[in-house]
């Protein structure tokens, strides 16, 4: 014990400090007497009997609580890994160095969200990650196939870069503009690092050296029917223009396992038009009570080697060729990944 901090060896010493040693001695003596009597004769009234039960139950409860705490710790370690706090600290240090994030990314909120995601990442989808070392340090554009009716794939790619990459990275994705008009959603997206999808924001994020995740298939990719699973939709050109303008490496990403999480039989166009939403996928399991969760498929995420492109970003023909190259790479990665997978769920 350092310095002038006194440590009391017993309760009596503290009592003595307050001049109550005599009082305490009397009370202890009284309690000892009561205990002796209690063993010799039954407690007379109900309250006293209750106290007896409580006295024996308290240590048991204590032990139960300790076990529960231990189990919770075990689970937490299994879910989050032993180095969770270190990972959070790395991110904290990064954003302090940047002078705070102008988009409102908050490490505290994001690490809480990561705890929730960890359940899906580690236990529910049991994500297996391949080639994450291909993600270079500094600015990078992750280009992935989009699938699964509900865009859970973005969240799982995000958590794999947080939990499995060294050092951990924050994946920034671009969200639809109208989400900024929704209460709670807009504030939450800001805090977990999602930004409104305008080109200036993407450019600024890359200049900050962030990881930007983009799905060039867009909404068409997410809402593919089951029969067209793992077939890529046409890619937009915007990401390539951005990569060439900012000289950013592109890492192709193949997400396997998301296509089977919801089986969509097709798109109900009239229902979508009626509700004024982009698509209305027909998912049978949605009509079974209690089966709204995605199926627990096994996610496999393959990160390819970084691709670098140069040239005139305003030449659409040139862009088209290069986009085709990226699309073909992801398509190959998907094919190889699917060939090597034993089962959808294992």
């Amino acid at each position, binding site marked *: 014990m350092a310095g002038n901090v006194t440590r009391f060896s017993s309760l009596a010493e503290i009592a003595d400090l307050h001049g109550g040693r005599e009082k305490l001695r009397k009370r202890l003596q009284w309690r000892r007497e009561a205990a002796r009597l209690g063993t010799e004769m039954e407690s007379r009234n109900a309250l006293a009997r209750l106290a007896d039960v409580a006295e024996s139950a308290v240590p048991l409860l204590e032990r139960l609580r300790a076990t529960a705490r231990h189990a919770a710790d075990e689970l937490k370690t299994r879910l989050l890994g032993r180095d969770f706090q270190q990972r959070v600290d790395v991110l904290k240090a990064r954003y302090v160095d940047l*002078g*705070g994030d*102008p*988009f*409102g990314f*908050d490490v505290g909120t994001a690490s809480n969200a990561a705890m929730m995601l960890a359940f899906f990442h580690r236990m529910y989808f049991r994500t297996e990650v391949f080639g994450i070392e291909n993600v270079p340090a500094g600015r990078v554009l992750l280009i992935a196939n989009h699938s699964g009716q509900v865009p859970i794939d973005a969240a799982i790619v995000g958590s794999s870069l947080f939990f499995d990459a060294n050092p951990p990275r924050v994946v920034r994705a671009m969200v639809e*503009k*109208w989400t*900024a*008009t*929704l*209460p*709670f*959603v*807009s*504030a939450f997206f*800001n*805090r977990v690092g999602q*930004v*409104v999808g*305008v*080109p*200036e*924001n993407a450019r*600024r994020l890359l200049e900050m050296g962030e990881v930007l995740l983009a799905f060039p298939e867009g909404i068409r990719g997410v809402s593919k029917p089951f029969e067209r699973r793992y077939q890529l939709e046409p890619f937009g050109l915007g990401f390539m223009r951005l990569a060439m303008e900012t000289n950013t490496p592109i890492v192709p990403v193949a997400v396997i396992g998301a296509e089977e999480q919801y089986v969509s039989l097709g798109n109900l166009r009239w229902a979508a038009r009626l509700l004024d939403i982009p698509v209305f996928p027909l998912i049978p399991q949605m009509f079974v009570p209690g089966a709204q969760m995605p199926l627990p498929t096994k996610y496999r995420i393959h990160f390819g080697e970084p691709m670098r492109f140069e040239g005139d970003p305003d030449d659409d023909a040139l862009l088209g060729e290069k986009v085709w190259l990226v699309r073909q790479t992801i398509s190959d990665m998907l094919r190889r990944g699917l060939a090597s997978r034993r089962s959808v769920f294992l």
Partner: protein
Amino acid sequence: MLAADAADDRAVVITGICGRLGRRLTRALHREVRVIGLDRRAFPDRPSDIEHHEIDIRSKRTKDIFRAGNVRALVHLGVMHNLRDSVEDHHSWNVVAFQHLLEYAERYKVPKVVLLSSANVYGPRPDNPVFLNEDAPLLGAGPFSEIRDLVGLDMGAQSYLWRYPQTEAVILRPSHILGTVHNAPSNYLRLKVVPTLLGFDPMMQVVHQDDVVWALRAALAPGVRGIFNIGGPPPVSLSRALTLLERTAVGVPHGVARAAVDRLFRWRVTSFPAPELDFIRYVCMVDDARARSVLGYRPRHDLLETLRAVDEERWQ
């Protein structure tokens, strides 16, 4: 920055000099240059070396000041913001009178015109990029048509900038100015219990009043012309700002807040117009890279100092 030509006895004309920002600018300038004040209000505690004209900028006498010559710069701070004044007043003051001022400046060869506009002319919008640069369109009056004269004022200065390249016109667009000034953001942060919009927590950019004074002085340097955004210390979320200021925030659903503020404004209980709620809903921040490279602008006050400036003594 003005000391280089101290022998020059031409004056700087400041409109709206009796405002809090005007008085601060005057105190920063009057030892270096001759200052002429122009305001409807009296300026009782003014430094003795200041020539003050208690006139309306719409009056003919304004012209006389410029006709007398010897004006080296016009700094226009006298912008009418109070929405209680009529639309006609706003228009005649902010648009017409300012056009006349520009005319005088042109006719009597004033080499420099500085307008203090505001980042509010860009307007808070859900699809704003995180930082707007000077080329961004001025969409502030879209959902808030009462401020169209402020956008018109900025546009007027812009067209002057392109029409008369021999005059050095400067437009400053600072983000929310905090301090002893009586503007909406300072008044808002001065509340003890601060209503916020439930579920919205936009990033905000604030700038200390003295940093704006610094930028105004820098704009007076010879050779400077163009439009400059003035940001402040790194942006902060509204909730964090309120925590730093130790305010109690009360979240109110947007629909309720809008209806309530609308009524309260009409009953003259509050001075906040309902469309201004968008400023605590959506992002409206500026990229001041141009001011940093051309003017050498750096915020001298950090975030905490800037926020706490709203609690400084009011009589200052």
